[in-house]
């Protein structure tokens, strides 16, 4: 697996060059788009990390996690992942904030770091997308969208947890 990604990077760049893509300027144009993204993510990080830090330092987060642990344990879920699972459909930037917090605390290669990565990767900012897409065209009656989309998210979470156990447990 460790060879696949660097080789893939090389293949993609070589293929682009063959197809006469201006590889250098395409790369810099793409990288430039990281700044608006970071501009949106960092203020959100500030808000979420302020809230999470005060929750953790006060001991409230630990108490909450201890309280929920038996329930989560019965379901086979690490209670420390709950904030991520609950925030993911609400806001992508907030979920990234929580993930980066888990990375700093436990490391990206710990079981919890790996599982959190899978959970973030396998689901989508459902409510934001719904509001944006339907809002843009003024559709009010969304029929079966919300239940279906929620079910899709739930499936992603469950499967993400299962596959993480399988791969990293």
């Amino acid at each position, binding site marked *: 697996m460790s060879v696949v990604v660097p080789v893939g990077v090389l293949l993609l760049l070589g293929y682009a060059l063959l197809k006469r893509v201006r590889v250098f300027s395409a790369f810099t144009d793409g990288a430039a788009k*990281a700044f608006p993204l970071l501009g949106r993510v960092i203020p959100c990080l500030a808000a979420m990390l302020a809230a999470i830090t005060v929750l953790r330092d006060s001991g409230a987060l630990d108490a909450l996690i201890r309280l929920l642990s038996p329930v989560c344990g019965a379901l086979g879920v690490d209670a420390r992942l709950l904030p991520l699972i609950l925030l993911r459909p609400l806001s992508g930037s907030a979920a990234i904030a929580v993930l980066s917090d888990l990375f700093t605390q436990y490391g990206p290669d710990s079981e919890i770091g790996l599982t959190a990565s899978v959970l973030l990767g396998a689901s989508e900012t459902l409510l934001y997308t719904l509001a944006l897409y339907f809002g843009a*065209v003024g559709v009010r009656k969304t029929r079966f969208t919300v239940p*279906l989309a929620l*079910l899709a998210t739930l499936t992603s979470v469950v499967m993400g947890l299962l596959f993480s156990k399988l791969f990293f447990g």
Partner: protein
Amino acid sequence: MDIVFFGLLAVGIVTELVTKGGDAALASLIAGTQNAVQNGVTMAGGMLFWMGLMGVLEQTPLMARLSHSLQKPMRFLFPDAGGAAEAIALNLSCNMLGLGNAATPYGIEAMRIMEAENPEKGVATDSMCVLLALNASCLELFPATLVGLRQSFGSARPAAVVLPVLLSSACSTAVTVLLCRLCIRK
């Protein structure tokens, strides 16, 4: 989101006021925002690389080919897509390649075309519902931003999550496709 944010802050501040006092509570809040800057700078490195690479990918014919090959199986799920078929295919292709930001304009474009062709304005058509459901389940071939993020935080195996992400999103996409098919009227 407003309520979530206020709730988190309120519980945290009140608890810390009781357990450790006001100075500690304020220090925690500022420590949080300081960490935001640090994490932001940390994640910038990986993000720049992968988004640069995605910029190259967008310029190759691969994207057009992927969206072209999606058009046929799409008819099964979007029988009434009409003029929006191309925008839908591009939206789904971008999502599969982890280009969430590139996907959004195509998605909105697809919604606009579908609403223009919609006989019942303001009521979602089958295709709109299916598009949103597929966006929620989001089959992910390579989660570039995520891999960059893991790299930035010093992971020794940044790409270890690619396969489980692919498998779990494939499962949820399969479930969504089946359910969509059942919900579609035609």
